[in-house]
C-alpha cells in the first residue's frame, strides 16, 4: 500500500520542514519527503496549493460517552475530529460514570477502536468521581491506556489532595491537567466578571479565580516535580505566570482554545447561550495577551475544549444553560482566521501548536512527519473561505458560537496511519 501526496506545502515544525514537496506513505508510515518522488504503484493525492501537515492533536475534548450519548458518542466525536483535521484527541474523564478506573478507560479505548477514525487517548480522573477527595486509580488507568489525569470541570480545591495527586502522578509518568478555577471565588458565575457582566446583571467569574489556581499549581509543580498542564488558559495574568515559570525551567505546559483567541465577553451581550463556557470568554486585553502568548511560545497547544450539549439544553435561560461549546470542526478555520489571516503568526507556528506542541506536552506519539512515523496527516487549504453551518457538523451537537461566521481555512483530507478518515 503506497500513497503519494503530491506537490503540497509540507510543514512539519518537529523537524522543522516548510517546503513544497511530495510525501510518500508506505504501509501506513511516512516513507520519504522530497521533490518529484516516483509514484509507481501509489495512489496519488494532488495537494497543489494545499498544506500537508502532521495530523492535528487535540488535548482537550469531551466525548460524553459513556452516559450522555445523546450529546455525543465516541464515534460521532471521533468523526467530528477527523472532519476538523484531528488525528488524535484526548478524552476528558467527566463522563457518567467518571473515567476514574481502568474499566472505563478500557471501554473508551474499545469504543474508539470500533469507530476506527481519529485516535482517542483517555484522560483519567485525578480523584474518585472527580469529587476532589480520594485519589483515583491512576496507575491502573495508565496501564489501560490513560495518558494524563484531570478533574476537568470540577477542579481539585483541596491543595493537599492536589499535592498528593501530583506526587503520585509523577511516579507513574502521568501529566496532571488542571482546569484552574477557585470554585468559591467563581461561585455562581456564568460569564467573565467585568463591564459586560455588570451591564447584563449576570454573575461574573473573576479572572483571579483562574489565576489563584494557576499560581497554586505552579508552586505545587515546583514542590513535587510533577509535570503540570494548564488547561484552556484564559487570562493575561495566567499566561504571564506560565511564561515566567517556563523561563525558570519548570515542567509546565498550557493550552488555549480557539474561542478564547477569537472572542471576548462582548459576545455575551445578546444572551446567546452558545457564548457560555468555562472558563468564560474574557476581556479584549486578555485575548490580546493570549495571542501574544501563542506567538512567543508560552502556549504549547491549541485545544478545543469541545463540549457538546444538546440544543434543548442550550435553549434555557443564560444563567441556567450548561457551560461549553463544540470546537473540533471550527478549530482550524478559527485559528487561521485569528492568528494567520488577521494576525501575523506564521503558519508553521500555528501548526506547531496543533501538532508537535500538544504531542510533546502529553508525550503522545504523532505530531511529526519524520521518516518511519505513523502517517497521521492533515491536508488543508489555508485560504478557502467558508461559512459555519452547524447543521453540517459530524458532531451530534450544534452548540457553537461561530454559527454563520465566515472563516478562512478548511480541511481537505485527514489520514490516520495512511488511511483516509475524512476527505471532502
Amino acid at each position: 500500500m503506497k500513497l503519494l501526496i503530491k506537490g503540497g506545502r509540507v510543514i512539519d515544525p518537529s523537524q522543522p520542514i516548510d517546503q513544497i514537496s511530495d510525501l510518500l506513505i508506505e504501509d501506513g508510515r511516512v516513507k520519504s519527503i522530497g521533490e518529484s518522488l516516483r509514484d509507481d504503484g501509489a495512489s496519488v493525492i494532488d495537494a497543489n496549493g494545499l498544506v500537508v501537515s502532521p495530523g492535528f492533536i487535540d488535548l482537550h475534548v469531551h466525548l460524553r460517552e459513556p452516559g450522555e450519548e445523546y450529546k455525543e458518542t465516541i464515534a460521532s466525536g471521533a468523526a467530528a475530529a477527523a472532519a476538523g483535521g484531528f488525528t488524535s484527541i484526548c478524552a476528558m474523564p467527566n463522563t457518567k460514570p467518571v473515567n476514574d478506573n481502568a474499566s472505563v478507560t478500557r471501554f473508551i479505548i474499545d469504543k474508539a477502536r470500533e469507530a476506527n477514525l481519529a485516535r482517542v487517548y483517555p484522560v483519567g480522573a485525578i480523584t474518585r468521581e472527580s469529587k476532589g477527595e480520594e485519589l483515583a486509580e491512576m496507575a491502573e488507568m495508565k496501564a489501560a491506556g490513560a495518558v494524563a489525569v484531570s478533574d476537568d470541570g470540577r477542579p481539585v480545591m483541596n491543595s493537599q489532595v492536589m499535592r498528593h495527586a501530583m506526587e503520585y502522578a509523577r511516579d507513574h509518568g502521568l501529566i496532571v491537567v488542571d482546569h484552574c478555577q477557585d470554585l468559591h471565588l467563581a461561585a455562581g458565575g456564568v460569564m467573565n466578571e467585568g463591564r459586560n457582566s455588570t451591564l447584563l446583571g449576570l454573575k461574573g467569574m473573576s479572572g483571579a479565580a483562574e489565576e489563584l489556581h494557576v499560581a497554586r499549581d505552579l508552586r505545587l509543580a515546583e514542590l513535587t516535580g510533577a509535570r503540570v498542564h494548564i488547561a484552556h488558559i484564559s487570562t493575561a495574568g495566567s499566561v504571564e505566570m506560565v511564561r515566567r515559570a517556563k523561563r525558570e525551567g519548570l515542567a509546565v505546559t498550557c493550552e488555549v482554545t480557539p474561542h478564547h483567541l477569537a472572542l471576548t465577553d462582548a459576545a455575551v451581550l445578546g444572551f446567546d447561550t452558545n457564548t457560555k463556557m468555562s472558563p468564560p470568554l474574557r476581556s479584549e486585553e486578555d485575548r490580546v495577551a493570549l495571542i501574544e502568548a501563542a506567538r512567543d511560545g508560552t502556549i504549547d497547544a491549541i485545544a478545543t475544549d469541545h463540549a457538546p450539549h444538546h440544543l434543548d439544553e442550550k435553549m434555557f435561560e443564560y444563567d441556567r444553560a450548561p457551560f461549553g461549546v463544540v470546537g473540533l470542526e471550527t478549530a482550524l478555520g478559527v485559528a487561521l482566521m485569528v492568528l494567520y489571516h488577521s494576525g501575523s503568526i506564521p503558519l508553521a507556528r500555528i501548526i506547531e501548536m496543533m501538532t508537535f506542541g500538544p504531542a510533546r506536552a502529553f508525550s503522545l506519539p504523532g505530531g511529526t512527519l519524520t521518516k518511519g512515523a505513523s502517517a497521521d496527516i492533515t491536508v488543508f487549504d489555508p485560504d478557502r473561505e467558508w461559512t459555519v453551518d452547524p447543521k453540517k457538523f459530524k458532531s451530534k451537537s450544534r452548540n457553537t458560537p461561530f454559527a454563520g461566521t465566515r472563516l478562512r481555512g478548511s480541511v481537505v483530507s485527514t489520514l490516520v496511519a495512511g488511511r483516509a478518515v475524512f476527505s471532502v
Partner: protein
Amino acid sequence: MPFTRKDLLGIRELSVEEITTILDTAGSFKEVSARAIKKVPALRGKTVINLFFEASTRTRTSFEIAAKRLSADAVNISASTSSVSKGESLIDTAQNLQAMAPDAIVIRHPSPGVPHQLSKMVSASIINGGDGAHEHPTQALLDAFTIREHKGRICGLQVAIVGDIMHSRVARSNVHLLTKLGAHVRIAGPRTLVPLGYQSIISSCEGSLTVCDHIDGAITGSDVVMMLRIQRERMTDAFFPSLKEYSSQYGLTLRRLELAASDCIVMHPGPINRGIEISSEVVDSARSLILDQVTNGVAVRMAILFLLIGTEAQ
C-alpha cells in the same frame, strides 16, 4: 417622535428622544386615572399577558390596571420557575404564549436576558418587567417621570442611589436613564455590593456616574435620593455583617438627609424595609415620593402599552 420599537427590553438601548416620548405620553395619560370613569378605549380588543416568574404585587398590579384603563384585556399568569424543572424550556413557554395570540407580554423573570430571548421567538411586543439583576425599564421610566414632575427637569440634577447596587436592576436602569438625560448620579453601598468598575457601564452621555465610598458622600448636596431594598439573604452570603450594621452605615435617616439639598426628594422602588435601609420618619415625611411613584407607575405603563401596541400609535 413616533415610537417604532416592537419591544421594551431595557433602557440601555433607548435614545433620549424615545425616553422623552414615553415620559410625555405618560403625562397625557396621568389625567385618565384622576377621572371618575378611569377608562379610555385606546386598546380595546388588545390582549396583554402578565407573565411573572417572580413574586410581585406592585408591578403586576400596575401593569394590569394600566392595561384595563386602556380597555385592553389583561391576563395574569404567575408561573414559577419550576416550569424549568418540569422540563419546559423557554421555547415551549414562548410557543404556548404565541398560540394565545397576545399583543403584548409583560415578563418578569429571575434570569437576566429572558425578555430578550423571548422577543426573538414571539411576534407579540415584549415588555421587560424586570429580568434578574439586569434591567427594570418601566421602573426607571416611572422614577424619571416622578422626578420630572417634581423638579421640572432631570438634566443637571444630582441623584444619589444607595444600597445593593450589584443585585439591583432598578439601579442599572436608572443609571442608564438618568445619565442619558443629563443627571449626575452618585452611587453608594457596601463595596461588596458594588460591582468593580461600575462607573464604566454608562456610554457617552450628558450626565455622569460616580461611585462614592460612603453614603454621606453620595447624598451630600443631592436633589434626589433613591434608596434600594436590601435583602436579608445578602447577609448570609457574607456581603455585610448584620442588618443592624447595614442600617447604621447605609440607612437613610432624617439626620443624614440634612446633608442633601434642602428641597431634596426621597424615592424607593419598594417594597421598603422600614427601619433598615430607610427610617419610618423619612418614609412618612413630606419629602418621600414613594406613593407618587406607585401612582405614576400606572400612567407610565399605560404610555408604554399604548406606544407599543396602540393602533393609532402604529
